């Protein structure tokens, strides 16, 4: 099992940003989504998830709003800000470049 903390620095941020790019989500759902989309490979630890969310919010990439959850409770929903969308795009292309570069190295050598 890969722990998120072992991910490349900044990867968790990228996963979170990408996950909430479609719609606002609360923390638990973000963790669930990442897990299910990655076929249970990526399990995001809460101890890392929430500090990451607060950090991203502090950096104004994402914003939060209290809303009604699917089970009718008050939950904190996170969504991308405009700056966050730009940042996500930049980070995505960064990641593409990086992973394809790593892929190239792994294939050729």
């Amino acid at each position, binding site marked *: 099992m890969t722990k998120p903390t072992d991910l490349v620095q900044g990867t968790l941020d990228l996963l979170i940003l990408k996950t909430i790019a479609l719609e606002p989500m*609360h*923390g*638990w759902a973000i963790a669930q989504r990442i897990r299910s989309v990655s076929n249970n490979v990526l399990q995001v*630890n*809460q*101890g890392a998830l*929430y*500090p*990451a*969310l*607060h*950090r991203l*919010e*502090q*950096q*104004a990439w994402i*914003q939060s709003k*209290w809303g009604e*959850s699917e*089970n009718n*409770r*008050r*939950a*904190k929903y996170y969504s991308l*800000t405009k*700056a966050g969308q730009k940042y996500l795009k930049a980070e995505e292309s960064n990641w593409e470049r990086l992973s394809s570069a790593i892929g190239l190295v792994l294939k050729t050598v």
Partner: protein
Amino acid sequence: MRWPQTVSHRLRSLFRKSAVEGELSDEMRFHLERQVEENIAAGMAPQEARRAAMREFGGVEQVKEECRDARRTNFLENLLQDVRFGLRMLRKSPGFTAVAVLTLALGIGANTAIFSFIDAVLLRSLPVKDPQQLVVFHWSARANPKRQSQSSYGDCADQTGVGDCSFSVPFFKTAREQAGTFSGLSAFAGPLNVDLSGNGDASIVRGLYISGDFFSTLGVNTFIGRPLAPFDDSPSAPPAIVLNYAYWVRAFNAAPAVVGRTVRLDDTTVTIVGVAEPHFTHLTPGKPVDVFMPFSIADRVRGEWWRRQDRLSDPAIWWVVMLGRLKPGVSIGQAQAAATTIFRNETLHGDAPAFKSEDAPVVTLRFARSGLDGETSQIAPALYLTMVIVAFILLIACANVAGLTLARSASRQKEMAVRLAIGAGRARLARQLLTESVLLSCGGGALGVLLAIWGVDAIGKLASRGSDQPFPFTVAPDWRVLAFTVAVTGLTGILFGLAPALRGSRVDLTPSLKENASSLPGAAAHAGRRFRLGDALVVAQVALSLVVLIGAGLLVRTLRNLQEINPGFDTQNILLFGINPSIAGYTDQQTQQLYTDLQQRLAALPGVLSVSYSADALLSGGWSAGSVHVDGAPPKQYANSAELSVGLNFFSTMRIPMLAGRNFTSADFAAAGATNAAAKSRDAAAAKTNPASSSAPAAPTALDEAYSHSAPVPVIINETFARKFLANQNPIGLHMVNAPRGDSEVPDPGPGYTIIGVVGDTKYAQLRREIRPILFSPLVSNGAHFELRAAANPIALAKNVREIVSQAGDNLPLTDVRTQTEQIDQLLFQERLMARLSSFFGMLALVLACIGLYGLLSYEVARRTRELGIRMALGAQRRDLLRLVVGQGILLVLIGAAIGVAAAMCVARFMTAMLFGVRANDPATFAGVAILLTLVALAASYIPARRAMRVDPIVALRYE
């Protein structure tokens, strides 16, 4: 642009703290509950579901803390929290807090006070406009210039080579015309004591001669009236003066009507045209001025000093200090080169060349603040030494409080362990402890500032005691003092807090959490490690205080040595006062008459045994010297000696023994007076016919004849003179003439001197100086200091003396009324101040070190109560326990003393110049101080040792 959002977010986290905290909890709770629901949906029992969710989540509080960290407001928040908590902790142990704050306050207060003095004396900029543009002229050369006379008034410190900052007025005028590198060039000289009358009783004031552009060059304005201007500085201008603000307030009660009033300076009526701005307190630091007078009245006010010399036009009289203001954009180097060119032009190729070209005279410009260092350079060493002493005090205080904090942090081990266990980081704990230290140092700093204000006042009073002038430097806190105090306070907090903070946060969890930590072997080992640091702190305190005490010991011995010097005369029960009839307009004849009259009237006072007078009071710092040629000695072999003119009965009044020959008689005074009169009329005539170049030889006149045929002046020499210059001769009856002046090789054609007696040696100007040869001559002109030998304490006579003097001559101000012992005290003022300050700080250091030692040992005893109980139960005698505790104390003190002695040997070498009659590594002082320290430390360890002896083994063991 993300920052508005970032900032508002951060502000919200900071100021809506409870809301943000609530949301954080809600968020976590929601997550958990959502997970529980999920687990139940997956088929778990509710309780099992909850447990699984919790397990998966991990430490809720830790996650929260990390979220807070992520919000980055933690730092401030934590700080506030730390401060609040720290204050609470300090309030909980008031004894510790009080001792720590007080100790730090002493350290910080002493440093702030002494730094205030350093600031006032050495750092504060001159109170003029743009002082950084102001430069002072200095000249230097390879050989002494040919000057007719040279005066300096202590504006520049003595240089090592040839050179100073006195120039002639003609050079100043030439430089002012030719130098294009200055936007203003002015000169000043003095201050001189002048007699001011026309405003109540006549009084002596300090008058500074200035050139007309002095005020404009300095950029100083007047508070009321107008400043002196170039038109005031011309011989035809009506005499005008400007008052200094402080003098105006003191002498004229700040009356605005003073502008336009006339007063008399010496014998000249002058108009007060203005009062200088309040902030213009001084020019050369430490030399206060009362009135500013233009050079143009120099021949009328205090003109008698110069006789026939015309100091305003003679290029051979160097006596003024030159101050220039650099033009914007002109570097000091450029201005210096230009000034040197002018200086060489004048002194090499002028009418009366002062130098040969191989002397290579140059002018150096120095910034006014550092260039006008005449007064400050004398007290600077003492100030720096005191600063070092108080820095040591602060270090001791730091070590002391660090020791206290360490002992306290040992008793807080459990608290630290609990905090660590519930998730605090070690860095966080260290920060908490450090915050508490800084809090303590802030408290100490605040209290220290109060102490400093009091201390500055007290030292200022101490420093001005024995003189009628207030402390001549303005000591007031400014931004530099403030910054210094803040920096010292902060550094102190970190310095003494760091070690305990690091140590305190390194707690071993398991043993510390157990009920009685100190009784466990592990904890004991741990504590052992801790106390190696505590021991080191006590050793450091002992070493530092030993250094301070040795410094104090050396200074005290210096003072005692100086006080115990036999000055060669009886210093007890003598009243001194000075008068100067010549500046009040008396002729020499009238002066003689007045002195004789005063001598008789004063001697008739009840309680007065005898009365005499002399040009300078002995041991007052003032002196004059000259060279004579003894008849029969090889040509060009001159006897250089100090000179003192004295009144009738001087030697009997001062109780200086007559060793050979006879004393002065009234006939001697008459003869000396006649010779003096002949010399004066010759000089006056010469000045009339040949005013400018008095050095040029003129044909002998009838007056010259009269002078050279007048009777030789009878003189008395002291024993050293006889031994040094007249060995193997009978000095009585020997004839001497003045050594030639300037570079002439022909001895003075005057009547010369005849030795009529030899008296015992006395110290003259200073106690520190070796006894010099002295030539005593009858006093026939100028001011004098009277000496009254009384039967008992003579200070009660002062009132009668004033009455008699005012009866004998109106308009005669008395100066410096004091007893001879007060005079000596004044002479030893700096030594006494240093001895007192250093003793005070030495005692303080000793007390602090002993508190440190006492605290450490007390803590040790408390910590080892159980061990001591067991030892007693096993048969140890009280004596053994005493030895155990005191032994530890003595060991620490001995180590500290050894280090301190070594350190003091290094440090004391820098004090050599201040010492007298005691070597910097004086074994007696070192041994004495070390013994004193050990004894006091022994007492400090005895108290905790007694507590150890009183340990009841049963109680100690049951205590567990």
